[in-house]
């Protein structure tokens, strides 16, 4: 039977991954003086979702992935539901990997993340093309995916330090 302080501790620690992901989403939406900076921070949210799904699967699952995908769609103003679909698919793919494989092998995690980032970009490209009734430019998608793949090791390092320090094993 958990005491009140234990329940409170668990709740606060369980809330940190969603709070961090929400912060990344809102931070990426801030007007920035330099365009390249905003391009750099935009993939943070997707990287965060993928990280927490692997490292805290008990608290960050389909519901949070879907919810944050919807938040992205609300802010972006594009086709509603597309980012939620992309995040949900990423979560499902990551969940079906062998337990602890991605935690123990960063190279495989990075490779899988790269594939997921490209697929998420293609889903958004497809939705934009349908909306425009014409093939949309593919360059923004490839650039965004490449940036996301490039910054992923840094993101994982920061989040894993945070996870060890404040969340631990739930």
């Amino acid at each position, binding site marked *: 039977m958990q005491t009140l302080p234990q329940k409170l501790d668990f709740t606060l620690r369980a809330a940190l991954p969603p709070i961090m992901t929400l912060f990344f989403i809102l931070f990426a939406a801030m007007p920035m003086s330099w365009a390249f900076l905003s391009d750099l921070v935009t993939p943070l949210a997707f990287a965060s979702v993928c990280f927490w799904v692997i490292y805290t699967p008990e608290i960050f699952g389909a519901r949070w992935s879907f919810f944050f995908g919807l938040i992205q769609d609300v802010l972006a*103003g594009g086709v509603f*539901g597309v980012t939620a679909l992309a995040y949900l698919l990423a979560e*499902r793919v990551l969940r079906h990997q062998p337990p602890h494989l991605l935690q123990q092998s960063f190279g495989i995690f990075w490779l899988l993340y790269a594939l997921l980032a490209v697929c998420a970009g293609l889903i958004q490209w497809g939705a934009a093309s349908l909306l425009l009734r014409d093939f949309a430019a593919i360059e*923004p998608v490839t650039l965004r995916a490449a940036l996301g793949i490039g910054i992923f090791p840094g993101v994982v390092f920061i989040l894993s330090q945070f996870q060890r320090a404040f969340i631990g094993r739930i």
Partner: protein
Amino acid sequence: MSPAARKKSLFLPSTLRPFAPQISLLGFASLILLILTLNVFFPQVLVTMRVGLIDLLTPLLQLVGAPGDMLGNTSMNFKDIGRLREENESMRKEIAELKSWRDAATQLAQENKELKALLKYKDDSAISFLTARVLARAGGDFTKSVIVTAGARDGVIKDMVALTEDGVIGRVIEVGEWSARVLLMNDFSFRLPVLIEDTKEQAILTGAGEEAPRLLYLPIDANVKPGMQILTSGHGGIFPPYLPVGRVAEVKGREVFAAPYATPERLQIVRLVQYNIPGVTGKAENKPAEPAATPENKP
């Protein structure tokens, strides 16, 4: 089973708990299908939901953006201290010049008023405007829009024109209680009826994301050269005529690229203007925008 996992499956009957992941997946897939269907058949429902959610997110966006604003203002203050004397001198000269222009403008305005009265001319000038701060740069790879800190409560209505000091930047497409979304000129779905000032040839300016906007539907024999000014043509009933848009940047065969005056990078303040365009249904009956009591709107 961990406390978190145990807690999640308590909502299901015990017979269904082993299938919790599959049920969850089915639930989300149905929800996404519903949302995508609403996108196609009832888009207005989603727009209403979206503006409501943005209103809810507005305080969080302001909170997250506050440190950045403070840092930006502090750095600007330090820069300003360095060039105060220089600025003072140049502003004194500018004030003297503007005073003489003011006198000339007053005289011309009076003359204009008398001539319009003689001709019984119906005025389509701007009836009201308000200034709003950009709260969030909302957009992905294919959507370019910003969310501003003014909504229905401040008098913002759909299709208000968004201007910067340089020219047209977009128009209002969604309005919530506390915020509004402005579709920017570089969005792929942005269309603006324009004309080339020198030749009066008409075209449609269309956004192209990170690339320069293009002018479509120019006549085949159009005589367009780089450097020519582009203005709004007034067609379509949303943008009044002769607002500055940009210049022709490049002509590659039949493709004409524009260089807008107003650029979305570093966009911080926009002016939302409601124009009284004659003959447009609903525009004349719309409640005029009351200038919002915000710091940006004070003289």
